[in-house]
C-alpha cells in the first residue's frame, strides 16, 4: 500500500502486532541455553569505605563478581571519568553496585544476597546543594564541591544592571523525577571465545558497546550490542544501561555461561538516574520605562555521586533558562554539585523542564509587579526570526510564538478565563463561605533545542547511516536508532519509503545491532527524526537515482548545516542546530479544604516543523503532557540521609488513567529546511512547559506565587498557612 507512507497521515506502527499480542521478546523474556541469572549487592551507606565484606560460601555453579574481575577499565566512559562500574573499596551513594552474585536459581541468589554483609567505615555524607556549597574539604569529586561550573554573558550585562531602576528576584526549587519506565533495567550477555554479545533494554547501543569494550578490554570487533524491544526509556536508558550491560558481560565472562540481569523495581528506583533537583535564582533588572533590560541567573543542580551527564544537562538548562524571550543583556552562572545521592542524569527535557519552570514563574511574578497581563508581557518579548538566542546564535528560521499563543487562546479561552478567575473578591468569598473549588488557569511558552547541544552533532556524534537495497527490491535501514516506544521504526521507515516512492512494506528496519548498523548516535535529544531521518532521506534520494542497480548500499555522514557556529569555551553561537517551540495552558480547581488539585483542562500548541505521522505525534504529546503533569503536581521523590524514601510504585505515584483529562493539542506548521520533509524535534518538547502552566494555574487559584515543584497539597497548605501567620 503505497499510500501508507504519506507524510503526516497515520500508518499502522510496524512494532504494533507483536507488542499487543504479547509476543515481543523483551530482555526478561529472552532465554539462552545454560543461562544464569545475576543479582546485585548494593551499598546501603551513602558515603563510606568498605572495610570488609562477609560472604556466605557458594553452592556449586554460583559465582561472585567484583571489581577485581574487571580486566579493563573500571571507569564508565562519560564526559567526566569518575564512576566505577563496581565499587572498589568505597561507595558514594546508597544503591551503588558493589558486586554481583551469579547462578542458576533466582531464589537461591536472593537468599545469598540476604546473607552477604558489608562492613562500612562511614564518612560524613554531602546530602544537599547547601551541604556541598558549605564544604571546605573532603570533597566527593577532585578538589571542589561541584563537577562543573559555567558562566556566559550576552550584551553588556554589568552596565545594563547598573542603569536599571530596580530588580525583581526569585528563587525556585525543583525536585527529583523518576523515569518509572514500566520495564526495569534489563541486560543479557553471552561471552563465547573472546567475543561478547549483549542484548538489552537501551536507548544507545553504541554507548553500551563502548563501555563493554573498555571494561572487558576487548576490541570493537569483539563486542556486539543488540537492542531488544525496550519498555520505555525517557532518558533513563541513555547512559545508565552501560552499567548493567558491563555487569552481565563480566558475569558471563567469569561463568562461561550467558547471564541475564533484570532489576527489580526497588533497585531500579534507588540506583538509576533521575531528573536533577535544582535551585534557580533569577534576578530581572527593570528599566525606567518598565522594560526588562537585563537578567542574572544562578543555577545549581544536585548532580549526585558521580558526574554522569550532569555537565551536558547543565549546559542545556543554562541555555534554556532565559526562556523564549528577547532580553538583551544576560548573565548566566551555573554549577552541578556533587552529593552522596543517586546520580542525576538524562530525563526527557534534559534540564529544560527546570529552566522553563523557573523563567515562566518568574515572568508571572514580573507581570504581577508591573501590573501587566502576563501573556501580553510575554508577547512583547517573544523571540523572532533574526533575533539572537541567549548564547548569541542567530535564529535564522521563522519563529511562530505569536501564532502558538493565538492558537492557545482560541482553543482554551485562556484570557477570558484568566480574567474571570482573577476576581479576588469572588475568591475570598468562596474561601469564607461554602467550600467551592478555587479556579485558576496558567500559561507557559517554551522551546526545545533539537539535537545535541553546541557542536556535539558535528564534533562528538558524527552520525553515520546506511541504506541497503537488496535483490528482492527491499530496502533496509541500518542505523543505531533505538525504538523505545516513540515510534522511530515506523517514522524512519516512512521517511525512506516516501523519499524512494516505494511501499512502506518494502522498507526493513530491525532493532539495532552494532554488528550490522553504523553508529548514527544515541537515541536522545529529540534528534532521531531530524538528524538521522534527514541522513536516511539523503541516502534514499541517492538510491532512487540508482534504483536500476540490483543490490547496493548508500551511506551518509552528518554534515554541519551552513551558517551555524559554536564556541564551546565561551558558550557563544548556535547552541542547537534548530529549535522546536511550544505553549501550554493548564486549568485547575483547587479544593479549599484538602488543597488537592484537579486538572480540568490541558491545551498545547507546538511547532515541530512538519509532523511525520499525526498519530505518533499525538501519542508523544499525550504521554509527555501526562509525564509533565506528574512532574508538576504528584511525583514526589525525597532522599533522606541518602536514602530514597519512595522506592516502589506505591509510594512513588505516577499518573494513572483517572488523574488527568485529555490534552487538546494543535500543531503550527513551520517546515525546517534541514529536516526530513520539514521535520524538527518532538519527543521532549511537550514535557518541558507543562509544569509552569500547571503551577501558574494553581498560583492564580490560591492567590500565591508558586516557588517549587512538585506542587503538592502539602506545599499548597504550607503556602496558605504562611498567609494566615503573616496576617494578610
Amino acid at each position, binding site marked *: 500500500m503505497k499510500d501508507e507512507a504519506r507524510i503526516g497521515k*497515520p500508518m*499502522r*506502527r510496524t*512494532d*504494533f*502486532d*507483536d*507488542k*499487543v*499480542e*504479547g*509476543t*515481543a*521478546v*523483551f530482555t*526478561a*523474556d529472552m532465554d539462552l541455553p545454560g543461562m544464569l541469572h545475576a543479582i546485585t549487592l548494593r551499598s546501603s551507606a551513602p558515603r563510606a569505605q568498605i572495610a570488609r565484606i562477609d560472604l556466605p560460601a557458594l553452592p556449586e555453579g554460583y559465582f561472585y563478581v567484583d571489581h577485581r574481575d574487571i580486566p579493563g577499565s573500571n571507569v564508565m566512559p562519560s564526559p567526566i571519568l569518575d564512576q566505577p562500574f563496581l565499587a572498589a573499596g568505597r561507595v558514594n551513594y546508597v544503591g551503588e553496585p558493589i558486586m554481583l552474585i551469579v547462578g542458576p536459581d533466582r531464589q537461591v541468589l536472593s537468599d545469598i544476597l540476604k546473607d552477604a554483609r558489608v562492613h562500612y567505615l562511614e564518612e560524613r555524607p554531602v546530602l544537599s546543594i547547601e551541604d556541598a556549597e558549605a564544604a571546605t574539604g573532603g570533597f566527593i569529586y577532585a578538589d571542589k564541591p561541584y563537577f562543573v561550573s559555567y558562566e556566559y554573558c550576552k550584551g553588556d550585562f554589568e552596565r545594563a544592571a547598573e542603569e536599571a531602576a530596580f530588580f525583581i528576584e526569585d528563587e525556585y526549587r525543583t525536585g527529583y523525577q523518576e*523515569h*518509572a*519506565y*514500566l*520495564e*526495569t533495567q534489563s541486560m543479557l550477555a553471552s561471552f563465547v571465545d573472546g567475543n561478547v554479545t549483549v542484548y538489552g533494554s537501551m536507548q544507545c547501543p553504541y554507548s553500551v558497546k563502548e563501555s563493554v569494550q573498555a571494561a572487558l578490554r576487548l576490541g570493537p570487533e569483539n563486542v556486539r550490542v543488540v537492542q531488544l*524491544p*525496550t*519498555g*520505555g*526509556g*525517557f532518558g533513563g536508558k541513555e547512559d545508565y544501561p552501560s552499567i548493567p550491560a558491563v555487569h552481565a558481560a563480566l558475569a558471563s565472562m567469569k561463568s562461561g555461561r550467558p547471564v541475564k540481569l533484570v532489576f*527489580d*523495581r526497588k533497585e531500579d528506583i534507588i540506583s538509576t538516574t533521575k531528573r536533577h533537583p535544582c535551585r534557580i535564582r533569577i534576578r530581572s533588572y527593570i528599566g525606567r520605562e518598565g522594560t526588562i533590560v537585563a537578567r542574572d541567573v544562578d543555577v545549581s543542580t544536585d548532580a549526585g555521586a558521580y558526574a554522569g551527564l550532569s555537565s551536558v544537562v547543565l549546559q542545556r538548562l543554562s541555555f534554556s533558562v532565559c526562556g523564549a524571550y528577547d532580553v538583551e543583556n544576560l548573565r548566566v552562572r551555573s554549577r552541578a554539585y556533587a552529593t552522596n545521592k543517586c546520580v542525576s542524569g538524562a530525563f526527557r527535557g534534559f534540564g529544560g523542564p527546570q529552566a522553563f519552570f523557573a523563567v515562566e514563574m518568574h515572568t508571572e511574578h514580573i507581570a504581577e509587579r508591573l501590573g501587566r497581563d502576563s501573556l501580553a508581557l510575554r508577547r512583547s518579548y517573544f523571540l523572532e526570526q533574526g533575533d539572537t538566542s541567549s548564547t548569541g546564535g542567530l535564529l535564522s528560521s521563522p519563529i511562530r510564538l505569536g501564532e502558538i499563543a493565538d492558537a492557545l487562546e482560541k482553543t482554551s479561552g485562556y484570557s477570558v478565563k484568566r480574567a474571570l478567575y482573577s476576581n479576588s473578591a469572588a475568591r475570598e468569598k468562596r474561601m469564607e463561605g461554602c467550600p467551592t473549588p478555587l479556579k485558576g488557569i496558567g500559561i507557559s511558552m517554551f522551546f526545545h533545542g533539537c539535537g545535541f547541544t553546541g557542536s556535539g552533532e558535528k564534533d562528538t556524534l558524527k552520525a553515520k547511516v546506511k541504506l541497503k537495497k537488496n535483490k528482492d527490491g527491499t530496502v533496509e535501514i541500518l542505523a543505531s536508532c533505538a525504538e*523505545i*516506544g*516513540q*515510534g522511530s521504526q515506523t517514522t524512519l521507515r516512512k521517511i525512506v519509503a516516501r523519499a524512494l516512492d516505494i511501499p512502506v512494506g518494502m522498507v526493513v528496519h530491525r532493532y539495532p545491532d552494532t554488528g550490522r548498523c553504523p553508529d548514527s548516535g544515541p537515541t536522545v535529544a529529540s534528534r532521531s527524526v531530524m538528524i538521522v531521518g534527514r541522513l536516511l532521506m539523503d541516502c534514499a534520494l541517492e538510491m532512487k537515482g540508482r534504483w536500476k542497480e540490483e543490490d547496493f548500499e548508500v551511506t551518509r555522514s552528518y554534515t554541519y548545516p551552513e551558517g551555524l557556529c559554536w564556541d564551546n569555551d565561551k558558550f557563544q553561537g548556535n547552541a542547537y542546530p534548530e529549535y522546536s517551540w511550544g505553549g501550554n495552558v493548564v486549568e485547575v480547581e483547587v479544593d479549599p479544604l484538602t488543597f488537592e488539585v484537579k486538572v480540568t483542562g490541558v491545551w498545547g500548541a507546538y511547532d515541530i516543523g512538519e509532523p511525520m505521522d499525526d*498519530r*505518533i505525534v*499525538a*501519542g508523544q504529546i*499525550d*504521554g*509527555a*503532557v*501526562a*509525564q509533565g503533569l506528574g512532574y508538576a503536581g504528584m511525583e514526589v521523590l525525597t532522599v533522606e540521609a541518602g536514602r530514597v524514601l519512595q522506592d*516502589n*510504585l*506505591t509510594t512513588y505515584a*505516577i*499518573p*494513572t*488513567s*483517572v488523574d*488527568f483529562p*485529555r*490534552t487538546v493539542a494543535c500543531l503550527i506548521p513551520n517546515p525546517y529546511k534541514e529536516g526530513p520533509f520539514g521535520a524538527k524535534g518532538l519527543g521532549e518538547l511537550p514535557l518541558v512547559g507543562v509544569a509552569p502552566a500547571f503551577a501558574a494555574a494553581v498560583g492564580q487559584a490560591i492567590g500565591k506565587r508558586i516557588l517549587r515543584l512538585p506542587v503538592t497539597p502539602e506545599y499548597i497548605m504550607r503556602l496558605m498557612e504562611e498567609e494566615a501567620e503573616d496576617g494578610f
Partner: protein
Amino acid sequence: MDSKVRFKLNGEHVTMTADPLRRLIDVLRDDLGLTGTKEGCGEGECGACSVLMDGRLANSCLLPLAAVEGKEIVTIEGFRKTKRFELLKECFTEEGAVQCGFCTPGMVLAAEALLSADPHPNERAVRDGISGNLCRCTGYSSIVAAILAASKRGEGLW
C-alpha cells in the same frame, strides 16, 4: 513441600507440581514459557502482570499458585485467539494506544475484564476500569479511546 495444583489455563486443564507459594507470574513465565505476562513492579501496583482469573482482572505477581486451584486463568496468549481480542487489537492500532508495549498485554486484558462486566461503559468507567494498569508512554487517552471504540463496534461481542 511441592504440591499439586490444578487449574484451567487458556482453556486447557493443567496440573502443576510446585511450591504452592510460588508466584503465579513465575509459574506462567518461567515454568510454562508464557512471557506475554510482564513484571513491572512485583507489588501489584502496575498491572503489567495482569491475567484474568474467572473472568476478573488479577495481578499474577500477587497470586500464590495455591490461590488458582480450581480457577480459570486466561493470559494474553489465550485471549489473543479470540474475536474480542481481534477487535481490541484493531482499535488499539487505530487509536495509537501502544508505544513501548510493556503495559499493553495487561492493558488489553484490563479492557476485556471491563467490557465483560460493562459492555457499554462511558469514558469515566473506562478510566476507572484501567486505573490499576500503569502506562508511562501514552498518557492513557489513546487507550481510553481504543476501548470506547471497541465497545461501540463490538455489538454482541461482549
